[in-house]
């Protein structure tokens, strides 16, 4: 097909899908009016596998489906850019039993990782899913490495994890994974269409999902809805559309404390309409009110910014202090909910937010490349003395000095007498000048809730409790896996493994 024969968005779709075999079928056929009541035989397009969303879950599914012999896989993405939250993510990937753990002599297993997650999930996480994901996390990690993702040669220990098991991409972002995965998709001939918004399912008389209505030429935030196109899928539809942290109405309906006043780390497109559509065809809603805020975010920049990764790396050998008292107020590597709740309680006398200050020795902060950016872009500060630090942030110096000295005895003795923090990663790392500080305040980050799935990524039906034929979900859009509090770096393995799993289920049907 020649470039000029395509209309505007098709031309783009064609470019994105370059290298794809047999694109022509995708552009043939008249456009019909979209309506769930139309006979299902009226299709504008037909594909073997239809995936909604181009994040980790969608990309992993597409690659796995291709590996299993799928000939015709399409990913529809509503945003102008590909990758969703995955592309702006921090690039932190937890997996047990990895080569790096072997090298660093860390004892770990899928059961230990799932156990840590169960604990953070506060008794309501889905053990079967967590164990399934942990048992294949290393394989998922390898898939990203095979596609070209690059990771630092050391592990990190994130809040709530009992051992160091977290890899991080050298670009400290999920973009270091989505970019190689997108390239791999293109190489394998997966069609990827941007500005294409999933609207609704086409369901046959037996209740099976047999296709979807996609609005092609949808311009997010610009009032252009696009043209509805009916797409038939031979092996079903995989919803990999991510969370809904950017939908203030939906999230505050679940948790009224999460109003428009609480910022978010998510892409603006994380609005959850695909999830609501799954509920409309019978999916079971789980844990919709469990919405996580990130305790490493900064009020001094937008979104995830630079401070988040900086803080995640540095919390193990830092102290976080209340500006009013100069005292610590939490275990700096407790799970996210514990820390976010503790931070939200830091207030001035009028009850206004008073973001706590996290203090790190420059000597140890500089081991991570993000420190340069934090200082350069004015979202963190460097001080030669504790006096200067205290003065800049308005912290009572005497109290702060006492706190630092006290904490340094914990570093020496390996026991945090204040909050019981694991001092494993703080060994020998005293809080000494020069110092780097950042301010932390939680931002809405992750939606634990979603549609219920089984370990084969099949979406369950609320009337029969059996899988809805033809409907699959993977990634953040699925619900219940992590319970009340997801551990950091555990979404990437979740999205990747469940995306792979969904593809396997679809291909084996």
């Amino acid at each position, binding site marked *: 097909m020649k470039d000029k024969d395509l209309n505007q968005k098709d031309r783009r779709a064609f470019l994105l899908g370059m290298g794809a075999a047999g694109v022509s079928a995708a552009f043939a056929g008249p456009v019909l009016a979209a309506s769930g009541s139309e006979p299902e035989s009226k299709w504008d397009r037909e594909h073997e596998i239809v995936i909604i969303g181009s994040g980790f879950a969608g990309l992993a599914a597409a690659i796995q489906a291709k590996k299993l012999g799928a000939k015709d896989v399409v990913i529809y993405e509503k945003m102008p850019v590909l990758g969703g939250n995955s592309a702006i993510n921090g690039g932190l990937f937890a997996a047990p039993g990895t080569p790096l753990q072997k090298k660093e002599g860390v004892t770990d297993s899928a059961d230990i990782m799932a156990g840590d997650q169960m604990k953070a999930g506060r008794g309501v996480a889905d053990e079967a899913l967590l164990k399934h994901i942990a048992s294949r996390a290393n394989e998922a990690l390898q898939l990203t490495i095979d596609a070209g993702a690059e990771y630092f040669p050391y592990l990190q220990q994130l809040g709530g994890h009992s051992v160091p098991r977290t890899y991080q991409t050298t670009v400290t972002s999920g973009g270091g994974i989505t970019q190689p995965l997108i390239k791999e998709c293109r190489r394998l001939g997966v069609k990827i269409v941007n*500005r294409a918004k999933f609207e609704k399912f086409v369901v046959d008389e037996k209740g099976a999902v047999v296709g979807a209505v996609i609005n092609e030429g949808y311009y997010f935030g610009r009032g252009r809805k696009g043209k509805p196109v009916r797409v038939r899928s031979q092996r079903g539809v995989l919803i990999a559309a991510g969370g809904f942290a950017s939908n203030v109405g939906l999230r505050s309906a679940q948790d009224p404390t999460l109003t428009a006043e609480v910022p978010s780390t998510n892409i603006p497109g994380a609005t959850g309409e695909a999830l609501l559509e799954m509920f409309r065809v019978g999916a079971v809603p789980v844990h919709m009110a469990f919405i996580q805020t990130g305790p490493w975010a900064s009020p001094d920049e937008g979104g995830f910014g630079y401070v988040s990764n900086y803080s995640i790396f540095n919390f193990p050998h830092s102290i976080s202090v209340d500006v009013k008292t100069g005292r610590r107020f939490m275990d700096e590597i407790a799970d996210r909910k514990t820390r976010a709740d503790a931070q939200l309680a830091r207030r001035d006398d009028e009850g206004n937010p008073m973001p706590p200050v996290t203090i790190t020795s420059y000597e140890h902060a500089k081991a991570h490349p993000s420190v340069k950016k934090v200082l350069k872009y004015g979202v963190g500060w460097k001080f030669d003395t504790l006096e200067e630090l205290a003065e800049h942030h308005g912290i009572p110096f005497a109290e702060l000095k006492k706190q630092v000295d006290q904490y340094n005895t914990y570093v020496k003795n390996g026991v945090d007498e204040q909050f019981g923090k694991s001092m494993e990663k703080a060994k020998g790392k005293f809080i000494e000048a020069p110092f780097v500080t950042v301010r932390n305040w939680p931002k809405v980050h992750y939606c634990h809730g979603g549609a219920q799935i089984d370990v084969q990524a099949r979406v369950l039906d609320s009337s029969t409790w059996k899988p809805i034929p033809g409907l699959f979900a993977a990634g953040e859009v699925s619900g219940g896996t992590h319970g009340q509090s997801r551990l950091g770096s555990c979404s990437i393995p979740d999205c990747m493994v469940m995306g792979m799993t969904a593809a396997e289920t679809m291909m084996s049907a």
Partner: protein
Amino acid sequence: MMMKKLGKLVFLSVTVAFVAGAGLADSTLEQFDKIKGRSYHASFYDGESCDVCHETNRATSLPADDACQSCHDLDSLVEATARPAGEEGQNPHDNLHYGRDVPCMECHGEHQARQHMCADCHSFEYPNFKE
């Protein structure tokens, strides 16, 4: 239609060099009759050349994501906005989150000013950025 576009390429190659090379920090949006546009696109505002960017001269649809690239060479843009060592991933035309796949109009507007996408989360300065 393609022919007409090609006809304009000669003129445009000059523009490309200009945009890619020199920094033009002042505003480039100015009024052409009833519509605002970039000063260096002045020759398109003769009422007949909307199709340089839009599909038809009625300009009812937004330009294709790669419309700008029929005149502006992405490789030269990538080169022109390269960032210093350690900040390679901040190149707006080839960045670590989206590579080279960001449609131009997500950061630049022809008829109205826009903010670059990076600003949603980062305070990078792009002194030569044209809205």
